[in-house]
């Protein structure tokens, strides 16, 4: 079981969602975050003041998956999030110790496997 965390461009979120859906990855969380990853700074001007926007808006996906789902999740995140320009984001995979589905108390693999409707 792994936790796949991906930081992607906000404007690519819909493409990532589509790619995850096609890869049958149905459970995930996303949140809006700010960060810096070495991309070029955006310059904005307000009246006489010029500022460099050192932090850029990103969206973080967190996907808990069983081991044999890790590769297809990563492939989907890359396919959906890539533009080829600096600033496309990163993917981190971390081991996951334990997972619980609150409703049933199911744990681990059972908890991260979506219900077959």
């Amino acid at each position, binding site marked *: 079981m792994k936790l796949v965390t991906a930081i992607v461009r906000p404007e*690519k979120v819909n493409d990532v969602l589509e790619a995850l859906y096609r890869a049958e990855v149905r459970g995930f969380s996303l949140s809006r975050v700010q960060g810096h990853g070495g991309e070029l700074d955006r310059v904005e001007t307000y009246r006489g003041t010029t500022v460099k926007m050192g932090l850029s808006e990103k969206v973080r996906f967190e996907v808990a998956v069983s081991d044999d789902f890790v590769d297809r999740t990563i492939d989907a995140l890359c396919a959906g999030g890539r533009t080829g320009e600096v600033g496309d984001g990163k993917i981190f995979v971390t081991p996951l110790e334990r997972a619980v589905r609150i409703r049933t108390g199911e744990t681990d693999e059972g908890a991260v496997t979506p219900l077959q409707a």
Partner: protein
Amino acid sequence: MIAVATSSISGADTAWMLAATALVMLMTPALGLFYAGLVRGKNTLNTFMMSFAALAVATVTWALVGYSLAFSSGNGFIGGFGNALLKGVDFAARPGTHVPQLVFFAFQATFCIVTTALVSGAVVERMRFSSFLVFSALWSVFVYAVLAHWAFGGGWLQAHGTLDFAGGVPVEMGSGFSALAAALVVGARKDYGRQALLPHNTIYVLLGAGLLWFGWFGFNGGSGFGVNHAGELAFTNTLLCPACTLLVWFGLDLIRGRQITAIGAATAAIVGCVLITPAAGYVSPGWAMVLGALGALPSYAVIVLRPRTRVDETLDVLAAHGTAGLTGILFVGFVAERSWNGVSDGLLYGDAHQLGWQALAGLAGPAYAFLATLVLLRLTGLAFPLRASDHEQSLGMDVTQHGEEAYASGEGAILVSTEAAVEVPVAVAQP
């Protein structure tokens, strides 16, 4: 009315026209607010700026040649250069009114401005700002001024008796059918038909529509060019007609979706104002209410059907202005009443010819607006790319066209330079 010995200027008329001009001027920022609320948050400023820019572009073109081409004597199709570069625009009364030509010029300028801004609704969220500036300058002269000449500058429609009180032809049908052409030439937004593209601030939409309605009292009420029966009738009809449109729209919303929507209400208020625009000083208050109620139907139908097509006429200028303007122009042909307007009767009061001329205006106005806009935009496109790239559209037009955001948080912003005399820029955050 007290006639001054040397001229026929009326103080009362002039005072009202000065106020009416300011009211109509407010309609352009109000439209910007209305449009800005209807787009996504990342395109707020760009959308507002298109309307704001019309205040600059259309005023200047109007002063240079637009006013002259619309209102100085020429042929039936277009006016001449008699008033070009503001020549002769002074304190003498505008013929046919008791208002100085200077004030008449400013009042008509605000019409040209808001109409130019209206067209932007078709191309928001993807048209490059610089290309829009060029296009809007051309449009304000070659489309608006021509149609204004036809309808109220002594052109062929007016000469043959077409009744258009405050601009059903140049303003409403002119902008609505130009918007359709603009949407076709510029093409759909990158995400159109693929993602749900939702309005980001409904309060802006309601407030913008409310301020537009407020300004419309000057727009219609001022189109009698003074304190007179036509202006008073138009003023009150501007209250009655949109109110009826709103109520009917509520009903249509209820039938279709079981809930009355705020964006529907804002749209209905504008549709109602547009409906009464050509008819305001020509129909009785009772008929104005009927027009408001019946006129809701065609515009509602276009708003429901248009998104099922591939035409991304983004903010439904065709439905709200083109369709409603056409409905209003035709309605005048049926119910114009000489006992109210002192000018002409419609079909129901015994004059079928009036309806014929209204129908001709309803064909010629849209046809010219559509074709001329098609040509102007294609020409603009030869010199300046019309569309922002897909990448720019993704990032948002605010950042890519203006280098600003409507909702900047300021977090992570590093001071680079300022006009204040700071010797060494201070980094407020260093990532």
